[in-house]
Structures are given as structure tokens and as C-alpha cells.
């Protein structure tokens, strides 16, 4: 009797094994050499996509199976049931195990071809789209040209390279105009002198700035040095929640809103500042000049003093699009944001440790946005011929910018003394790189 039972079962595993091997075989060859020249990148991408789709289907099957299991359990809990739920349960159990096994197989295949790997898994945003690329000279560039390489799976290698190069040169021109100037500059100033001036800070200033090593230092100094400014710090997700709750239709008075927010922020932070516990989680800094503008700066890495993006908005705007890489609906703030992006890259390129301090101070110079006339044409409002828009002076120079303090004179040597009134402002058309 035993023999009878055993023999029918014995041959079964073998064909199953053979089947699974046969299944494994067609997949075996692409697994082996991802680096080999046998598979061109487009084919690899197509295979990876297909496997991801399979994985998706298996995950859906697992979900369905879980539902059925729960259903079977529920039915079994009812009184007066037959063995039917038990059979259902056993059947589903076997099916689920098979799905999970298949899922593991696909996962191993994806790992083998490099689609899933440790660094990718440990990053929250696994496509690295928010990670700026750091160049050998320490400068940070946006990622857009990198995306070109990844995205053009169907085009030829030549096309991809050409598109990537074009995107890269566009980005470079936009964010590093001073690099182009050095190459093409015909001015009388020798290149080395122009390069040195922003970096040759008086020794006394360098000492003071070296005090600003942590985020708390920077923000505390800024609070002291710039009256009228309201600074708030957030973890990244907290900022998104806050941005969505900002009233876009002003259904609360601004005063009420500030009071409410101060309450929220002070529950985590010292009034007006952050305590040292939360400082290492700060990812977003909000600078608010009430009734004038709101600027959002994001930090990367979290808790550091390295800014990676900045954007300006109306103090009355609200919504999900209010973040450091967002865009205001108003022309004036959109143009300031664009200019600020260039300034940010400049400050980062000069000296990373002081970049946040300089950037925040430079942002504060915009508190005179609606009152300071253009230093070139003497008007506040002017029609920009190219854009056909009436704008106030949205460009403030950054090249020789040095943060000024209106209070204690001991911080700044007299040669660099400028009050925020003296920091000049220009219309877009009145602003030129040489005028800085």
C-alpha cells in the first residue's frame, strides 16, 4: 500500500523540476553576463521592464490570494460549515507559495541584471532624480542631462549623446554663466583678479563666518541681523503638509495664520529657532517677509548647511506647488526664482561652507522688492521689452555680494560696509553680468 502511494508521487517532482529548469533556462542566459556585449542596452531595458511587469502581476496575484485566504477563514468561522473552506484554504495556500516563489525568482533576476541593488533600495527615491550630480571641482549641477541618457532607450547611442550634450550645455549656460564669461571675457580685468576677488575675504570676516558651522548658527545669526524676517524650518514632509494648508484664497487673515504656524513650529522648536534635536532633520527653510514674499530653500543633505534649491513665491500663494523647486504663478516671483538659481550655484561654487549664509542674506535683500528703484534707470516698474511684462527690479547682483549687518559694526570691516539700502537692484534688462 505504501509503495502504491509512493510511486505515483515520485515521478511527479522530477517533471516539475525539469519544467522549472526549463523555465529557468531561457532566463539563464540573459542573467549571466549583463556586461557582455551580447545584450544591447535597449534589450536589457526591455527585459527589465518585462520582468517588472511580471513582478507587478505576481504582486497582484498575491494580493488576490490574500483576499481569498481571508475569505476562507471568514467562512470557516461561520457555524455549520463543511470542509469546503478548508479545501479553499489549502488550495490558496499552495497558490500563494507558488506566487511568492516566482516573485523571489524574478527579484533575483532583476538583481542579477543590476536593476535592483542595495544603494537603490536604501534610497527613498530610487531613481535618484533629486540627487544633483557633483562635479570633480566640487560644483553641483542639476540632473537633467543625466536623464537624457537614461530616457532615450530607443534612440541610437549617437543621438543620446548628442541630446545629453545639448541639455548639459543649456543647463551649464543657465546655471554657470560666469564660467562662460571667463572663457569669453574680453574685459580689462585680468582673469585671475576677477577670480580672486570674491574669494579674498578679509581675514576678520572669515573668522566670523567660520563660526557659522551649523545650521543653528546660521539661522540664529540671520535672525539677529535681519529684522522683519520670519524664519521657519521643517522636515521635508512637514513642509509639504504646510504648503498644502497655506491659504491660497486667504480664508484666514495672515495674522491668524502666522500665529497658528508659530504654535506648530514652536511645539518642535524653540520660539523662532530650532532646538538641537530637530536641527539634523531640517530639510526646508522658509523665509517670510510678511506682505512681500516667501522664499523656500531646501537643504541637501538633510540637516546640513548646503542649500540645493531655492524658490520665491507671493506671501498669499498656497498649494502643493510651493516648494524649493516649484514655480510661482506670478511673473515677478518666477523671474526672481530663476535669478536666485544662478546665485545659488555661484555661492556654492565659491565656498560651500558659507553658501547657505550668503544665500539667505542675499534672499533677504529682496525685502525691498516693491520699494527699491532700479540702480540703472531709476524706476521701480519698467516694461521689459523682451518679455513684454511690467516688472519691478528683480535682479540683485550676487557676484560681489557680502552679507551686511545693520547693527554691530565690529562684525564687518569698514571697507565692506554696505547697508541693505545700498545693495543695488536692477530690472532684467538693466542687469548685466559686468555690472556686478
Amino acid at each position: 500500500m505504501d509503495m502504491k502511494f509512493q510511486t505515483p508521487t515520485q515521478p511527479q517532482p522530477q517533471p516539475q523540476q525539469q519544467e522549472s529548469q526549463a523555465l529557468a533556462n531561457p532566463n539563464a542566459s540573459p542573467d549571466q553576463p549583463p556586461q557582455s556585449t551580447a545584450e544591447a542596452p535597449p534589450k536589457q531595458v526591455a527585459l527589465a521592464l518585462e520582468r517588472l511587469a511580471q513582478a507587478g502581476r505576481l504582486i497582484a496575484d498575491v494580493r488576490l490570494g490574500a483576499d481569498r485566504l481571508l475569505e476562507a477563514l471568514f467562512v470557516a468561522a461561520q457555524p455549520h460549515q463543511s470542509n469546503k473552506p478548508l479545501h479553499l484554504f489549502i488550495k490558496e495556500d499552495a497558490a500563494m507559495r507558488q506566487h511568492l516563489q516566482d516573485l523571489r525568482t524574478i527579484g533575483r533576476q532583476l538583481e542579477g541584471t543590476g536593476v535592483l541593488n542595495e544603494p537603490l533600495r536604501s534610497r527613498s527615491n530610487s531613481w535618484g532624480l533629486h540627487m544633483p550630480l557633483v562635479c570633480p571641482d566640487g560644483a553641483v549641477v542639476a540632473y537633467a542631462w543625466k536623464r537624457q541618457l537614461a530616457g532615450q532607450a530607443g534612440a541610437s547611442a549617437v543621438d543620446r549623446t548628442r541630446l545629453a550634450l545639448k541639455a548639459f550645455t543649456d543647463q551649464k549656460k543657465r546655471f554657470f554663466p560666469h564660467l562662460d564669461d571667463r572663457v569669453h571675457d574680453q574685459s580689462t580685468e585680468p582673469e585671475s583678479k576677477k577670480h580672486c576677488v570674491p574669494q579674498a575675504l578679509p581675514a576678520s570676516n572669515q573668522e566670523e563666518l567660520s563660526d557659522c558651522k551649523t545650521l543653528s548658527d546660521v539661522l540664529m545669526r540671520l535672525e539677529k541681523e535681519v529684522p522683519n524676517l520670519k524664519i521657519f524650518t521643517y522636515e521635508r514632509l512637514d513642509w509639504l503638509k504646510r504648503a498644502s494648508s497655506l491659504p491660497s484664497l486667504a480664508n484666514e487673515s495672515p495674522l491668524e495664520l502666522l500665529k497658528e504656524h508659530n504654535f506648530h513650529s514652536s511645539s518642535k522648536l524653540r520660539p523662532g529657532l530650532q532646538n538641537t534635536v530637530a536641527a539634523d532633520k531640517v530639510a526646508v527653510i522658509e523665509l517670510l517677509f510678511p506682505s512681500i514674499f516667501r522664499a523656500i530653500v531646501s537643504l541637501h543633505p538633510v540637516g546640513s548647511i548646503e542649500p540645493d534649491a531655492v524658490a520665491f513665491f507671493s506671501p498669499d500663494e498656497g498649494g502643493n506647488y510651493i516648494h524649493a523647486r516649484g514655480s510661482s504663478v506670478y511673473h515677478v516671483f518666477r523671474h526672481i526664482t530663476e535669478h536666485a538659481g544662478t546665485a545659488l550655484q555661484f555661492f556654492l561654487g565659491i565656498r560651500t561652507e558659507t553658501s547657505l549664509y550668503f544665500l539667505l542674506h542675499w534672499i533677504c535683500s529682496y525685502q525691498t522688492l516693491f520699494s527699491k528703484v532700479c540702480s540703472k534707470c531709476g524706476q521701480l516698474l519698467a516694461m521689459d521689452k523682451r518679455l513684454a511684462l511690467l516688472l519691478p527690479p528683480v535682479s540683485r547682483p550676487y557676484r560681489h555680494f557680502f552679507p551686511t549687518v545693520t547693527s554691530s559694526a565690529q562684525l564687518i570691516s569698514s571697507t565692506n560696509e554696505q547697508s541693505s539700502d545700498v545693495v543695488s537692484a536692477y530690472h532684467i534688462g538693466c542687469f548685466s553680468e559686468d555690472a556686478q
Partner: protein
Amino acid sequence: MLLCSGIWSSPRSQCHTATTKRMTIKRVLHWQPNVGTSVNSQILNEVSQCVESINGVKEGRWKATLTFYKPMLRDQSLASEFPRDFLGIMVPECPNKYFFVIRTQRIVLEADSTIQTIMEKLQSYKMRVALNFEGFQYQLGDFQLRVGKVVPTHSENLRGIVMEVEYLPISSIEKSRQIMEEFLEIWQEALSKRTLPGHFMPMEPNFIEYGLSDHYSSQHTAVQYATVMAQLIASVQSVQSMRN
């Protein structure tokens, strides 16, 4: 009457049903004809063309209404105790709201638009004169302009021309003052090239006297319309007295 133009839709120029708070600064100007002349539709056309010449993009129509009320009293001798200039104003940004202004007492009140039905049913006040302010609205970057004629309802008799200038990015009257003034200078200069018989008169009512804050709202707009109305009446009366 739509305020949409490409991506410029929801975040601005809308009145939340629960509030009067607005996002933007607005100045209302009225046309002051030169002594001895009166308004006509030719002037309106010229003004519209001037807006387009400074890159204004026509977006759509707008309409506001202003109504003079008088109390329905059994005893007419009591009429003198009631203010003569009790105005009801509807602004397009807040179609659910109705604003009342008594200029001489510096009172402005915001009510739900159903108040008109209530007044009718109560037979407490009756419309004496009703006027429409209507025309086209234009987008100029962060500015929005409205040019409109003043006509009695159910009539095409042009009684005046008004203009609204709105600066959208901020809502503080103080902070936007300079920008507004420079815009009006630019506007007046552009308009003066057309040598029209008159000019736009900017005047700013004292909002503080009405109990309004620096943060601009539709109540401010209602007060401006009431003030403009008083000016229009004064100029029409002076023309009439000159003729007599």
C-alpha cells in the same frame, strides 16, 4: 464671464464663499471729462486700444452692479432720517456676496447675496437707480486691467467710464503703493499720447475711516465704487449746471 487664460486660473482673483478676503490690490479710477465735454463710446474704444498697446491681452468680460436704495416708509416725513446714499454693490469676484456702503457714515457691510431677496420680500427698501459697470478685462503680466462703461440697467445711455487696475502678487496696500503709482504714471503717459478730452482720476478713499485694514479685500473694492459713484454724480451735476 470667465477669468481663465491659459494657466492663470484658480489661485487668484476668486472670492471664497466664507470670506471677503482678497488676494490682490485694486485701484478703481473713473473718467473725468474735460470741462464742457462728456463721455462717449469713442473714448471707451480709445482707452481699450491703449491697453492693448501696452501689451494687454483681452481675457473676457466683467460686470459689477451698483444700486441706490431708498426706504419704503409709510410716513414719508421720516425719509430725512434715512441716509440718501445707501448703496448696494455686487462685484464679480464675489458673486455670492452683496456689499452695502453708506458713504457719508463711512460704513461698509458685507452680506450674502440673498439679502436682496430678503429686502424685496420685506419691502423695506426699494431700488431707486441701478447701474451696471461692464466691459472687458485685460491681462498684463502680473497686472489685470478692467475697462468698463457705466450704464443704467436696461439702457445703453453711457453715463461714465471706469477702470480697475489690479496688481496680483501681493495684497498689502502699503507695500504695493509705489508699484501702483508707477503703473498709473506709465498708464497716464500712454493714454496722454491719444489726446483725449479728459483723464482718469485716481482717488483713494480713506479705508481706515471705514474700519478696513491694510490687507486688501472686496470690501475695499465696494468702498472704491461708492466713492467713484459720488464723483461721477458730482461731475454729471457740474456738467448739467454748466448747461443751465
